[in-house]
Every structure is written in structure tokens, then in C-alpha cells.
């Protein structure tokens, strides 16, 4: 059926590489074979070497008693818990740092990025110094340095003791800053607290619908409400009423000094604070640069057109520039969030028990299961990274639709 008049060339092996019809496929097959071979070689080599030392590959250690204590636990854990649970405690600790680190880095980074473009010379220069300072010094140094600041220049709990103490608590005796961490009041849920939470969620939902409604009104009629203040009232007033109706169900536990340390209250350890802040500031410097380049990518004509329409500068930024800049900004942000998360594995430098410290540190050392622990760790960081990028990609797509 073929319409070609070319004589059919007989197939030769050499054509696999010389003929462009086959070359692509054969190169792929060869790459695949090499990849598989190297992979098998690595696995085989590892197993042989392990066997040589009399070791096997087994994950049974995860079910055994851990035997060590961890200071920061978001779930119940004692030294009688299993290694698997210790790993979970570590995972949660990693996620806490990653989450708050990313949030703070974003806020600080966006501000710094915008301010670096400020027409105010001093502000712009200060921001340049901030950005260059954090960006060009290794993050490990920042972590250790901030931690040292926290431990060396804050008073020991002992200094709060006595009739004429050297140190005193802040904000009406509710906050204690010590060289072991900062203690804050902690909310204590009494009876009926759940009703209060339900009330709060309902008011937030109503406020949300109100905002949507007011936007619609503004679009149709051009008249706006003071949306912000009304939503605050919608949220606050019912909750305040409910708070008293249910007999003040939420109270606060205040930290107080007992024995060697402060008791009760929320204990934010210096290791947590130093690690989170150092990672956040370091990453914020990169985010600032991304934001700045995103803003600069929007043509100046946009700003000029907007001001010709009479918009004020902050409106121009919020309504015209940032929404367009976001499309340039968001994709590279993913790698910043991933970097922050992965850099959190430097936690051991300040004794923060993240997953690298529990599973990849103490558990690994006590059980001698290097390979298994490392595989699990790699699996964890890989999954978190993939999760973060897919979530942000999802958001990114919604920005893309807005664009024309």
C-alpha cells in the first residue's frame, strides 16, 4: 500500500545507531539498560558488603522499644514507646519547623522584596543589606549564631527567683524569656469550650459569605462597605457573647517558676525558635529576590496606566502589580520552600529533635540500622517535597487561569 518508490533497505544492526529512525529508541534502550545495571550493581554491592559484616536488611527495629527521651513531643511519647513512634515525633517536629519557617519566610520575604524597591533610599539600602547578609552566609552559621544569642544573652530560670530577682517576666507576668526557651500562656479548654469553637467557625463562615456578598455589591453598584470592620464584628461579637454565656470555658495557664524550670505554659524551646527563625530569615532573603524580580518583570506602563487612572501607590501594588507578578513569583517559590524543609535537617546543630535527629540520629546509632534508617529518611523527605510542590502547583494553576 505504501506510496514510496524507495527500494526497501535491508535491516542491519548498525542502523540502530546510524539511522535516525531507530537512533532515538536505541539510545533510550541503552540508557535504560545501563541504568538498570548500575542500580543492580549498587544493590548487589550493598547487600554483599552487609553480608560480609554479618548484617541483614530488616525493618523490625521500628517495632522495638526506643529507650530514649525526646524533649519536644507533639504526640504522647515516652522512652517505652517504639522507634517508629520516635520517628513520628521527629517527623512532626520537622513539619512544625518547615511550616512556620515557610510562613515567616514568605511574609518577611515579600515585605523585604517590595521594600527593596522602595523609593526611600534608606529603606531600600537597609533591605539590600538584610538580603545580602542572609543570602551570602551559610544557613548553618545563622542557626548556630541565633541559637547562641538566645542562650547566652537571656537569663537562666534561676535569675527569676528570690525577692529581688535579676530578671522578671514580661506582659503582666505572663511571658518568661529564658535561656531554655520562651514560656507563653497556654489556653486551657474547659467544659463548653467546644461550643465556643463551633461558634467561632460559624462566624468565620458567615464573615466569609459576607465578604463575597460585599464584593458582588461593589461590582454591581460600585458602592463598597467597610468590609474589614464589619467582618471583624461578625466574628468577634458572637464569640464574645458565647464566651460569657458558656461561663468562660477557655482560661489561660500561665507559666510559673517551680524547682529548676518554669512549669505550665507553652514552652517554645530555644532550639525550635533559633532553627525556625534562622531558616525563615535565610530563605526570606531568596524569596525577597524572587519577589523583586517578579515585580520588575511587570512593565512600567502598567504602573503608569494605573496612576493615570488615579489609583494610589499601595492600590497599584495590591491590585495591579502583585496579581500579575505572582505568576512569575510562585513557581520559583516552590524550590525555596523545599530548600527550607530540607535545610531543617541541620537541626542537630542546636539539638532540635527533628526526624534526622530521632530516626536518622539516635535510633540509627542505637540500633545500627544505617541503611534502613537512611532509606526511610530519604523516603520521608522525598514525599514531603513532592507534596509541597504539588500543593503549590495546584495554587499556581489557579493563578494561571486568572491570567488572560
Amino acid at each position, binding site marked *: 500500500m505504501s506510496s514510496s518508490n524507495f527500494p526497501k533497505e535491508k535491516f542491519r544492526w548498525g542502523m540502530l545507531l546510524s539511522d535516525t529512525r531507530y537512533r532515538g529508541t536505541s539510545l533510550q534502550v541503552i540508557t535504560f539498560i545501563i541504568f538498570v545495571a548500575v542500580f543492580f*550493581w549498587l544493590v548487589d554491592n550493598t547487600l554483599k558488603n552487609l553480608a560480609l*559484616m554479618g548484617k541483614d536488611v530488616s525493618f523490625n527495629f521500628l517495632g522495638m522499644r526506643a529507650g530514649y527521651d525526646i524533649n519536644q513531643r507533639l504526640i504522647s511519647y515516652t522512652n517505652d514507646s517504639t522507634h517508629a513512634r520516635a520517628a513520628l515525633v521527629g517527623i512532626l517536629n520537622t513539619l512544625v519547623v518547615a511550616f512556620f519557617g515557610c510562613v515567616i519566610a514568605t511574609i518577611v520575604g515579600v515585605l523585604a522584596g517590595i521594600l527593596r524597591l522602595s523609593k526611600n533610599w534608606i529603606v531600600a539600602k537597609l533591605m539590600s543589606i538584610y538580603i545580602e547578609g542572609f543570602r551570602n552566609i551559610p544557613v548553618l552559621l545563622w542557626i548556630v549564631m541565633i541559637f547562641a544569642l538566645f542562650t547566652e544573652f537571656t537569663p537562666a530560670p534561676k535569675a527569676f527567683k528570690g525577692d529581688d530577682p535579676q530578671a522578671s517576666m514580661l506582659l503582666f507576668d505572663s511571658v518568661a524569656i529564658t535561656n531554655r526557651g520562651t514560656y507563653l500562656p497556654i489556653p486551657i479548654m474547659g467544659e463548653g469550650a467546644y461550643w465556643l469553637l463551633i461558634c467561632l467557625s460559624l462566624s468565620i463562615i458567615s464573615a466569609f459569605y459576607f465578604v463575597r456578598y460585599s464584593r458582588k455589591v461593589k461590582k454591581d453598584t460600585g458602592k463598597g462597605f467597610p468590609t474589614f470592620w464589619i467582618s471583624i464584628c461578625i466574628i468577634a461579637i458572637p464569640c464574645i457573647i458565647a464566651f460569657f454565656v458558656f461561663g468562660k470555658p477557655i482560661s489561660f495557664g500561665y507559666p510559673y517558676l517551680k524547682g529548676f524550670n518554669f512549669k505550665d505554659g507553652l514552652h517554645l524551646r530555644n532550639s525550635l525558635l533559633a532553627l525556625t527563625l534562622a531558616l525563615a530569615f535565610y530563605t526570606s532573603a531568596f524569596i525577597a529576590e524572587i519577589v523583586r524580580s517578579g515585580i520588575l518583570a511587570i512593565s512600567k506602563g502598567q504602573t503608569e496606566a494605573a496612576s493615570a487612572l488615579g489609583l494610589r501607590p499601595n492600590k497599584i501594588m495590591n491590585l495591579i502589580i502583585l496579581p500579575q507578578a505572582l505568576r512569575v513569583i510562585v513557581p520559583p517559590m516552590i524550590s525555596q520552600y523545599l530548600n527550607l524543609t530540607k535545610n531543617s535537617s541541620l537541626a542537630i546543630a542546636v*539539638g532540635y529533635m527533628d526526624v534526622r535527629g530521632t530516626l536518622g540520629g539516635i535510633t540509627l546509632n542505637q540500633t545500627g540500622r544505617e541503611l534502613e534508617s537512611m532509606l526511610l529518611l530519604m523516603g520521608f523527605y522525598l514525599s514531603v517535597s513532592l507534596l509541597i510542590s504539588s500543593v503549590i502547583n495546584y495554587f499556581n494553576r489557579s493563578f494561571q487561569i486568572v491570567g488572560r
Partner: protein
Amino acid sequence: MKKSLILGFLAAAGLTAGMASAATLDDVKARGNLNCGVSTGAPGFATVDDSGKNVGFDVDYCRALAAGIFGDPMAVKFVPLTSAVRFTALAAGEVDILARNTTWTYSRDTDLKQTFLGVNYYDGQGFMVKKDLGVSSTLELDGATVCIQVGTTTELNLADYFKENGMSYEPVPTADNAESQQQYLAGACDTYTTDASALHGTRVNLENPDAHLVLPEIISKEPLGPLVRHGDDNWADIGRWVLNALVIAEEKGITQANIDSWGNSKDAEVHRLLGTGDDDMMAMVGMPKNALYNAIKAGGNYGEIFENNLGATGGINIERGVNASWTKGGILYSPPFR
């Protein structure tokens, strides 16, 4: 074709896999120096002095071993290792032997696949506090914040001890001695716990040793000793008998200074030990005949090494106590060299 290629690769892999070989002694000889894993800085056990030289109780053991192999106590490369990475480093072949205040335990022996060569220091876990904390016993430490090094028996004992006594504590994990010390001095923890010997060594090196106190309680048994990885019994034998030789030498009174004057001794064991008799004992493990002579000559016998590093001469003033020879009321006892 695909299959044969993979098989070929596997065969090649098999060859290279054999490289982490069993003959550690041959590897060490071929390299020309011993790789010895020591602590990153435990006064008395392994530190670096002002002139950049490695010194300490564990260091001297490695020097004795190197002297046995090469006749040169300086043919050692010291690899500082934190508690957490030491076993991995040994298992991976980064070091040939670990002499790093390491406690001999069942699971390290069996699960971690290490071979302990004996005990060179019978230790126990203690606590150091600042005197102005006003604490005189570990039982008063309920609720205290405790600095510990990760990857140690210390952290396991600590958990057990506080639980046994119905007390609570807040652990502050650190990577090494320097970090623990800094945290402790800054007051970020109330007490610093580790092997009592290391605490004494650390204390005398603090700016104001008298402001600190090592509490009287010892909460665990910490038999410290050198170790090698499983799989090379000959190498383990060499390390074990260098240690034993140092102990026997003290028992017999052979010292660094007088070692050359034992030629006419009537004691047959001395001649077997020093290689001055007819029997070439060390040939059995592939070592030079006078290997143990060189090992003892390097830094003296066990007693001398102890005195120079941990005793009065070493400036730490630790009593021999149980670490005295069995002939002097201690429990140091070597099997016979025959």
C-alpha cells in the same frame, strides 16, 4: 543481550564488593598508617595539645598498636568522631579501630556487629552541677534540664534512672562534648551527664573548676574499651593482645624506661611477650616478633599511660580505684600470654 550485560555487571560488582576485605592488617600495612577513631575532644582520653599533637589515654592505646605494627608510634591518623557517627564510621571502614570512650554493651556487640577487644577503663555515668545550684545528690534533680550527648549509653541510662526514681527531666541533646560544655556553662542546662571520668577531665579544664561539682552517685556501669568491626578475628586478636600486653607489662613491672633491661630475666612469659626468647609468638597473628616490645616502649605500660593522661601527671588526678591491676586490689586482669 540485555541479560548477559546485567550478569556481566553483577560479576564486576561481585569483584568490587570483595574489596571491603577481611584482612584489615594487610590494608593497614599497605596504607602505611593506622586509622584510629577517637573522640572529638574528651580531656584525658583524646584531645589535641597546644602543639597540635593528639594526646590522651585512648590516643596512647592507638599509638601502642601502631608501634606494634610499624615500629613507629606516630604512624597513626586520628579521626575525630562524635558519639553518633562512630559506629557507622567503623562499620564503613573509615577507621580500622575505635578507641573512643565506648561502652561495651550487649547490643553493640550483637546488633551493631562490633567486636570489643577488652576493657581499658571501668567507668560509670555521673552528673556534674554548678555548686551554686545547691544540689548534692542526683536524687534532688527532679525536673532538671540535663545536657546529654546523642548516640550514647548515657541517654539510655538517664531515661532508665529517672524513671526508676520517679523523677522527670528535660533532655537537651548535643552532638559532642564541646557543645554540652558550652550549654552547661551558659546555664541552658542544670546538669551535664556523661562518663564520670570524662566529667572529671572536663571539670579540671574549666575556667574555675572549684565552682563545679561531680555528684557522688554513679548510675551505671560503663566498661570502656577499644573495638573493631565484626568479620576479622585476626585483627581483633591483634588489638586485644596489644591491650593485654600493656596490662601484663604493668603487672610485671616492665616500663618504658626499663624495658631494655629484661634480657636476662628468668621469667619465660616476659621473653614471649617482648620477643626476646626463641618463640616467635606474634607470627601467629602476622606481626613482627618484637611487636609488643615496641607497643610497650611507645608510651609505657598500662599504669604509665593511665598516670600520664588521667592521673596526677596528666593533671586530672583520677584515682586508679578498680582500674588498678588485680595484684594491687583492682580488677584489671589479663589472660596469660602463652
